[in-house]
């Protein structure tokens, strides 16, 4: 136990004193915040650039259909020929010219209408113009059928069904996605952590092999102790780094927004995620549905979520990092690791994609259940399901229990296999092993 502590301490200090680690720890938040500020700034800039479209309207059917919006404004030409209008829009540097000729009826006008521009116009602009004409056409056709504009406006109403659980708890539509998004955040965190610090574990094993100190050390401690100490020491360094990132990143972000005077809402407008829109404006209390969102977020069992996050995080990370350690032991240098790394990354990527596509829309569907039981994906997928709660209306208790049991069994199995490969691999030099060879090592 004493020796394990010594190893953990050494691995931790070796990591946090490493120059590139220190640089990354302090540079990353600056880069991240810099990028966010840049995006916010560009978004702001983008909004201020407007497209101007000239309209030459010779028909009687259009008057105020084209409304200036944030991104597009319209300028009406009067009493000039089409050629003159084209010339002037060109010289004024307008984005384009919409030509609405006169005609017997609206159908004919629509048929003969044209959009002129320097280059092929953007599809969003075209859609907007087409949309305006389309709605005018629909209105005209309805008028011919004897329905007034007022009646039409009344007819065209929004509808959203209200949903509730059997117990009568009112739910918000999209709250499942929102919850999965929060769980997804946790899952994503686990994946990033595994990839970054699993890689550190692997490189640290390779370093011990290439510096040839490994045999000196394992004549004093058991290879398993060394592997475990390395994994724990590296993860503690990782947690330190993550902690610094979160604290300094948040501080920097506030400072940056304050200095550059950027409203954080700029970002949430462009992002369509309910996660950002929900809590940011939910507290204003103006919109009852937003209040409900806020309530739902507060209702998420955070204590439970964080405890299970820790359980899945620790088990998942130990499983993956012991595989990383075994890979590091099996090879002589980092370039040889490629063929082994890919099969590890695959389930992680799969978990994230399955999570975002399948679990978001149906957190308790068969795919979501399957992947939240499969041990290599469960740490990520189960966390996406958990914000919905446990038991009634959430993840059934048996699934959660089964998932953790499978994970623990896998953990023991994988660590056992990995430590066998590790034990043999660290003393093997000069050859790049195949999978077949690794399998043989298990029997040594």
């Amino acid at each position, binding site marked *: 136990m004493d020796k394990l502590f*010594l*190893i953990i301490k050494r691995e931790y200090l*070796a990591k946090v004193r490493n120059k590139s680690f220190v640089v990354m720890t302090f540079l990353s938040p600056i880069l991240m915040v810099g990028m966010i500020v840049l995006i916010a700034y560009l978004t702001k800039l983008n909004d201020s650039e407007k497209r101007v479209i000239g309209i030459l309207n010779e028909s009687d059917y259009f008057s105020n259909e084209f409304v200036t919006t944030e991104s597009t404004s319209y300028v009406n030409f009067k009493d000039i020929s089409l050629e003159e209008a084209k010339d002037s829009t060109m010289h004024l540097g307008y984005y384009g010219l919409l030509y609405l000729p006169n005609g017997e009826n609206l159908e004919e006008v629509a048929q003969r209408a044209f959009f002129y521009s320097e280059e092929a116009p953007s599809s969003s602009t075209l859609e907007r113009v087409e949309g305006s004409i389309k709605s005018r056409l629909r209105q005209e056709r309805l008028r011919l059928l004897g329905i007034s504009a007022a009646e039409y406006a009344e007819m065209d109403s929004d509808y959203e069904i209200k949903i509730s659980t059997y117990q009568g708890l009112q739910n918000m539509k999209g709250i499942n996605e929102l919850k999965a998004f929060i769980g997804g955040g946790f899952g994503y965190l686990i994946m990033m952590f595994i990839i970054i610090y699993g890689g550190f574990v692997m490189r640290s094993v390779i370093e011990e092999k290439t510096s*040839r*100190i490994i*045999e000196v050390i394992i*004549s*004093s401690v*058991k290879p398993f102790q060394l592997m475990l100490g390395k994994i724990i020491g590296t993860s503690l360094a990782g947690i330190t780094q993550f902690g610094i990132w979160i604290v300094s990143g948040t501080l920097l972000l506030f400072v940056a927004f304050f200095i550059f005077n950027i409203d954080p809402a700029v970002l949430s407008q462009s992002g369509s995620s309910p996660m950002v829109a929900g809590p940011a404006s939910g507290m204003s209390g103006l919109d009852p549905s937003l209040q409900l969102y806020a309530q739902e977020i507060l209702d998420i069992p955070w204590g439970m979520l964080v405890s299970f996050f820790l359980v899945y995080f620790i088990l998942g990370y130990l499983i993956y990092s012991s595989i990383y350690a075994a890979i590091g032991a099996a090879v002589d240098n980092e370039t040889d690791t490629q063929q082994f790394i890919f099969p590890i990354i695959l389930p992680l990527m799969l978990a994230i994609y399955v999570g975002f596509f399948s679990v978001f829309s149906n957190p308790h569907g068969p795919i979501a259940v399957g992947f939240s039981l499969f041990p290599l994906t469960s740490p990520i997928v189960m966390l996406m399901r958990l914000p919905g709660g446990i038991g009634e209306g959430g993840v059934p208790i048996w699934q959660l229990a089964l998932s953790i049991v499978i994970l623990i069994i896998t953990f023991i199995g994988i660590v056992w296999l990995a430590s066998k490969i590790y034990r043999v691999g660290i*003393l093997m030099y000069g050859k790049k092993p195949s999978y077949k060879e690794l399998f043989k090592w298990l029997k040594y």
Partner: protein
Amino acid sequence: MDIILSAEKVSKSFGDHTALKNVTLEIPRNSIYGLLGPNGAGKTTLIRIINQITYPDKGQVFLNGEPLQAEHIRHIGYLPEERGLYKSMKVGEQALYLAQLKGMTKADAKKKLKYWFERLEIGDWWNKKIQELSKGMAQKIQFIVTVLHEPKLLIFDEPFSGFDPINANIIKDEILRLRENGTTIIFSTHRMESVEELCEYIALIHKSEKILDGKLSAIKKAYKKNIFEVVVESSDPKGLLAHATDKFHILSSNMADDGRELGFSVQLGNGDSKELFQFLGTHANVHSFVETIPSANDIFISAINSKGQLHG
């Protein structure tokens, strides 16, 4: 005889490859013991078993009469063939770390390190990183961390490969000094001539089997072939050679350019050199008269050959 370490019928295989087959050894306390044999014979596997890095499939190893256990690690010092140190770690910190892994307390390790650093004249390296040191300096550190915890048994695998000649000599002297202080030392090497002069006992390992072991002087006695190398001076070397050929079994001879000096090697029947010496004394001036003692390498080759004959 007081035995510090013994192996009893130790076997180990890796997949289809047999690394050790029924190896039995006894290493006397306070001796220098040579574990000799070509590359791939199984020496390193045996050493790793002694260090509890790997475990035998069959057989057992005893230290001081007790079966090997984790607690024994602190009594053994091991310098592996594949050796190195953490490159980006400071010398002092690293030495302390390795000493503590061997079970020393920090204070004790610090005290002993100070002693060794002074002894090998490396006082001011404490805060230097290994990558800043020359190879020879790093080798000294490597040696110190091997012996720092004052093990009763020291194992050196290919000790002098990679050491420059000056350091090799320093370390040879230190090893001899350690032995005088009661340490038992095992040398493992395929370059037999490099340790032959140091070893009192040897074991020859070939193709995972021990083919010969025992006290080196006794083995040499058993393997000597009663061949003598003689150099004499005579006014008539040709006549002398003809005369000698009549009386003895001459294996080879060579005549010097000056026409007076003669060298030849003689195979004697039963180790009785008296008759030859008397013959030479009456007919010529003897310059040298040496019995050919086989080197470990010669013994090794003839042991393999005789074993091959036995196996038919």
